[in-house]
């Protein structure tokens, strides 16, 4: 389960659940007429694969706010959304993710599987930063976008803070960009996946940020331009319990330090 505080909004829920149950059990035998008022599609013994759309409104929120997830499927016999479990074929639900989250919908029938995704970005309000050369939020956002086009995060193996070859490449690219832009100071943030002790993971995140910092210094970035911080598993990017998600969280993230 992602860290979600889910509040159900019953959008024709009872009716739709009844309809989908009836359809799912009957689909191998014969065509069953949908009950009156059903929002579900007509199921045929052979036919098209499901279609699915998943949207979120709004796409970006401040921490603590809610997002309306809205999904529409056709021809599906089962619809699930990661973290919410089985859902009705067409529905709306309010969610309040604690972290930026990829919502992933899978619609299935006997003829195939269709997926739909939407990413909800959760902005954690940062303390007001002192204004430097980059004044104004628009200027900051543009500078951040250019920075992140040139500088990628460094990723780590499980329980390790050694820079892998790909992380060394990322750190070298970051150092090259920083050497071209001596006016930029960099914040290196260390993160860990969700497994294990929160206290230990904060120390491990510190070691990861430290390893990236050392690589930057070796590549010629002066130490006083680099600030490091560890978030351990306190600020997860990805909140699914899967290796791909854990890998996203095991990283040192570079950003402009203002």
């Amino acid at each position, binding site marked *: 389960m992602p860290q979600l505080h889910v509040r159900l909004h019953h959008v024709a829920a009872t009716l739709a659940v009844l309809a989908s149950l009836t359809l799912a059990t009957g689909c191998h035998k014969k065509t069953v007429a949908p009950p009156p008022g059903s929002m579900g599609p007509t199921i045929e013994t052979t036919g098209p694969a499901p279609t699915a759309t998943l949207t979120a409104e709004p796409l970006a929120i401040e921490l603590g706010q809610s997002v309306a997830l809205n999904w529409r499927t056709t021809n599906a016999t089962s619809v699930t959304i990661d973290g919410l479990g089985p859902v009705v074929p067409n529905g709306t639900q309010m969610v309040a993710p604690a972290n930026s989250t990829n919502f992933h919908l899978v619609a299935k029938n006997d003829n195939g599987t269709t997926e739909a995704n939407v990413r909800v970005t959760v902005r954690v309000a940062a303390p007001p930063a002192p204004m430097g050369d980059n004044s104004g939020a628009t200027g900051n956002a543009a500078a951040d976008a250019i920075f992140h086009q040139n500088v990628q995060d460094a990723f780590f193996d499980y*329980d390790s803070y050694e820079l892998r070859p790909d992380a060394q490449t990322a750190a070298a690219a970051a150092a090259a960009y920083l050497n071209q832009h001596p006016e930029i100071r960099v914040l290196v943030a260390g993160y860990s996946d969700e497994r*294990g002790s929160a*206290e*230990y993971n*904060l120390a491990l995140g510190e070691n990861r940020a*430290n390893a990236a910092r050392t690589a930057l210094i070796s590549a010629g970035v002066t130490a006083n331009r680099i600030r490091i*911080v*560890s978030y351990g598993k306190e600020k997860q990017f990805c909140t699914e319990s899967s290796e791909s998600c854990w890998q996203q969280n095991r990283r040192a993230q570079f950003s402009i330090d203002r």
Partner: protein
Amino acid sequence: MEKMLNLARRMRTRPDLRWNLLPLAMALLISPVLRAQDWFKTETSTGAGTIRMAAANFKPQSPDPQSAALKRTFDAVLYADLANAGLFDMVSKSLLPTSTPGSPSEIQLPQWSGAPTSAAMVAFGSLGTQGDHLIVNGFLFDAKNTQFPQILAKQYNEQASDDQARQIAHRFADEIILRLGGGVSGIAETKIYYVHLAGGAKEIWEMDYDGANQHPVTHLGTTSISPRVSPDNSRLAFSSLDRSGFQIKMYSLLLGRMVTFPSSGGTNLSPAWSPNGHDLAFSSSRSGDPEIWIADASGGAARRITNRKGPDVSPVFNPRTGAQLAWASGGTNGIPQIFIMDSDGSNITRMTDGGYATSPSWSPNGQFLTFAWNRKYGPGAPGGQDIYIMEVATRKWIQLTHDNGRCDYPSWSPDGRHIVYASSPNGRMDGMKIWSMLADGTQQRPLSATGSDMPNWSWK
């Protein structure tokens, strides 16, 4: 203390605990009778049996509805405190005599010592209100001693409120436990500090030892973790996220506000009080690598104790001596293990033999460690993280939790008979609850709602 002795004996006399505990665990599951027999054996083998205790309903002294409600609270809390103590075989309320003696002249001991009550000890008394005051008279009698049965007589006079009825019951229970529990103070008046997750922020909260009175302490609106209360209950050290990362923070429980504690560079985590309250050990990366440091309680005279590559975190003093520390250390590419050392950094000894071991807590008598351990930890490996205890001298261990989700942050009670810990069925913070159990793993029960983590039991 008796339980700890039993445990030590069990560990020494059983060469391979893993296999020998299995039939024991199965017996516990299969039959409550067998379980009782096991207790009978182990207790008698140390020369101390569980005491059969009757907690009478107290006699109402005033007929008003308010005191009836207060009496319900008092009777329930007193019974629960005595049952939680881990010392008594409590007489079910349905087996009590129908009489409710309010004073020594009203009790007829043969009713209590004879079958079916068969009590060795009787706690009884009276409760009433006078104006806005709640007055409780409590007695403890030895039911088998017909000549001089009185062990304890106490009178309490407080503001009439549900909370005071609760607190008086705690105080009376602790008086009983002190006298019948080998001179070790009870824990009914102790507090548990913990992390509470709400709206994306983590604040420090406090509750009574039994889960009552859950309420926030801090209102910082950020991520505050690892609360540790000082031995005199005056201050709360914890670690909190600000713009420069995690820093040690200090809250005065006497002043009810934050007090200054110096910030430093790096990530500063997991404070731990020395038993005399003079020193604070913590993890700090102010010199680069995360190491164990010790400073005085106001943050001055900070000195580095360890010098090891990799994460070093979660120190805890030996509360008996103050001369040793246990902590979790990762090494260069290692998975964390529990180590102990002298408080000057010498005599480092590794305690765990593999797996993923974190979050040590040292028993008040200095004899045992408890910690979170996933013995099968590794990339892709299945297996749970459970609470274990280990005898420091022999490094023999027993697993206390089984199939109860991911468990972490065990913390000993000051009487050494209980352990509080956090557990989550799905392993995530939003599913975490705080549980307590006896230090032999029995009487596991949840204390808090979900979204609660990192409990720390007060020292008194």
